């Protein structure tokens, strides 16, 4: 019998019941809850007179709607100016009180984007099944967990039963061999993968990321990579547990300690694919060939190396692709054949569950240190992923670097990643953004998003147009 993949092992160890019709009942170890996708689930429980199956498996934290300006934030929930947002955050609080679930309040130092908070607090751990009513739950797979987003009906299902009815996915290995060039980051790797396999390339698969480049990545980088599995069409992405994982998890507030830690570590040592495991599909990339990436269109697969030129629809044969490129160029207000480095962002956003961890902020600060944001850039926002990240960044003086460069330093939350709060693009504005989605209107009605790494976003803020951060880093030395 062939060996098992990491996904096979995680699936197998959480199987409550395999059913004859091919579906399975899978046990869920952790559910993370936020304000946007949970109210209707709690309402469903209430209407059916049901209670959460296990309260100690859930953690709630508001993130999508919270204001990021200190002035508005300081007053807590009651001070949220948008009444609809306020009601949603208040509803999360009330639901957690009613159902006796643990939550972090909006001004708790542990508050932040749910996918930053989970690993940071040791709430999500290797070997777990982790779900959340949010597609970027794939992030937690970086810890060697089986983690994926679910809809609100499933949030309710997990609350009520601690399980989900699932179909097993196929296995895909994305292997990134070799090493990365200086200035090329996990974000560029993620975008390069999506550029290669497309936004539906991973549909129906659980992706495991492997290869030397991934083994060499920090946990922050691995989280960035797994985070964007969903942009490649896969609900879940994961990475084998190694010493990097263990070092990261050890000592986190909710992680096991003492004897329990030793027990856990022993169990986690099996969390990798067997040598002879068989994947349904294997995709390989060579690390040295990956350049800093910039998206130019309205889908994450519309991505190019920073020195690339925009596609010309006239040269595309496939009619549906031709139409998509034409529409994207029109929406983005860009000319076929023009260069990525000619694009001038009006705003810059450094944040989101993809790139708001301490390492991301350090990378951005490195680039802007001693420099100024270009006059043509109206706003450059830096939004840490959690209160803990913010505290750490301030301890390292990163906030002062950003402020001195003319950037804004905000309170943690999703912010301009999806613009549910006051942080958004105006119609027609271009944004260099470290988030994960460049869909039409994602960052504001009519807004135009270009996805990049934190260092690339920071360099664009200073230069006033996209630049190859590799040149800068050499020049800066």
């Amino acid at each position, binding site marked *: 019998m062939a060996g098992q993949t990491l996904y096979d092992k995680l699936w197998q160890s959480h199987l409550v019941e395999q059913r004859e019709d091919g579906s399975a009942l899978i046990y869920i170890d952790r559910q993370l809850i936020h304000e946007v*996708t949970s109210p209707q689930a709690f309402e469903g429980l209430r209407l059916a007179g049901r209670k959460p199956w296990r309260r100690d498996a859930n953690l709630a934290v508001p993130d999508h709607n919270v204001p990021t300006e200190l002035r508005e934030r300081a007053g807590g929930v009651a001070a949220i100016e948008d009444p609809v947002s306020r009601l949603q955050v208040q509803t999360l609080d009330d639901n957690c009180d009613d159902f006796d679930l643990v939550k972090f309040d909006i001004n708790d130092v542990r508050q932040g984007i749910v996918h930053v908070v989970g690993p940071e607090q040791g709430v999500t751990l290797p070997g777990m099944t982790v779900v959340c009513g949010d597609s970027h739950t794939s992030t937690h797979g970086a810890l060697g967990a089986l983690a994926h987003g679910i809809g*609100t009906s*499933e949030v309710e299902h997990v609350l009520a039963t601690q399980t989900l009815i699932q179909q097993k996915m196929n296995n895909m290995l994305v292997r990134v061999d070799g090493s990365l060039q200086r200035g090329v980051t996990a974000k560029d790797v993620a975008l390069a993968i999506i550029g290669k396999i497309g936004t539906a390339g991973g549909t129906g698969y659980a992706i495991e990321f492997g290869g030397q480049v991934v083994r060499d990545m920090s946990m922050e980088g691995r989280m960035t990579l797994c985070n964007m599995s969903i942009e490649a069409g896969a609900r879940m992405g994961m990475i084998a547990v190694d010493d990097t994982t263990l070092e990261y998890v050890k000592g986190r507030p909710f992680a096991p300690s003492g004897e329990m830690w030793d027990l856990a570590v022993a169990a986690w040592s099996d969390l990798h694919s067997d040598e002879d495991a068989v994947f349904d599909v294997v995709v390989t990339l060579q690390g040295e060939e990956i350049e800093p990436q910039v998206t130019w269109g309205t889908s994450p697969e519309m991505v190019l190396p920073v020195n690339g030129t925009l596609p010309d629809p006239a040269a595309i044969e496939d009619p549906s692709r031709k139409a998509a490129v034409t529409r994207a160029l029109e929406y983005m207000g860009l000319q076929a054949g023009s260069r990525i480095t000619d694009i001038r962002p009006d705003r810059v956003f450094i944040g989101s569950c993809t790139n708001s961890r301490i390492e991301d902020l350090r990378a951005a600060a490195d680039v802007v240190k001693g420099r100024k944001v270009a006059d043509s850039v109206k706003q450059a926002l830096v939004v840490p992923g959690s209160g803990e990240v913010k505290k750490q960044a301030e301890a390292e003086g990163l906030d002062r670097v950003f402020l001195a460069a003319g950037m804004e330093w905000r309170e943690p939350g999703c912010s301009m990643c999806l613009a549910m709060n006051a942080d958004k693009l105006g119609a027609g504005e271009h944004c260099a953004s470290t988030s994960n989605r460049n869909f039409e209107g994602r960052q504001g009605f009519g807004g135009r998003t270009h996805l990049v790494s934190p260092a690339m976003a920071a360099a664009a803020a200073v230069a006033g147009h996209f630049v190859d951060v590799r040149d800068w880093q050499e020049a800066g030395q």
Partner: protein
Amino acid sequence: MRAFTVHSGLAAPMDRANVDTDLIIPKQFLKSIKRSGFGPNLFDELRYLDEGQPGQDCSRRPLNEDFPLNFPRYRGASILLARENFGCGSSREHAPWALEDYGFRCIIAPSFADIFYNNCFKNGVLPIALDAAIVDRLFDQMYASEGYELTVDLQRQRVITPDGEEIPFEVDAFRRQCLLEGLDDIGLTLQRADAIRAYEDRQRIDSPWLFGAIR
């Protein structure tokens, strides 16, 4: 949940690939704490010329006359013909809620994003994946004849065109059964409570760190 057995209705087009859930229902409407009322904001950025706000009276907003769902010939449509990777992006169940609230009971496309596909079944909306060439043909037929109606028979797993052609489709047995009977799957799962408890008892011994941490 509303059961789905046989449904006949007018087909309408959403003729582009990779339609994401942000496009199906933009984020400003996600602030609602209700499950209903999203229909008027389905495809909001395409349907209207202005930027929609929650709680607004949509009947007074300027319509985008170039958007097919605003064409009189597609009024009252309940079957949506779409292209590949429909429903990609965020996991928001508001997307199928909006489709359902608008009146769509069935979506036919060459492929769907996983989470969206799953969410549809929980809301009495049937997503049907057919060969791209077949979907192409349905689009052509729909464009060619006003009032183009399809019948979808979930029991027999067939899409039936106006000229009687029967196109078979696949759907997994469990989801099909739930939809046919309009079953609440939480209730079904709770019938297996003993199996869940037995699993937990084993895990408490094998992996005790998984329990009791969050309090």
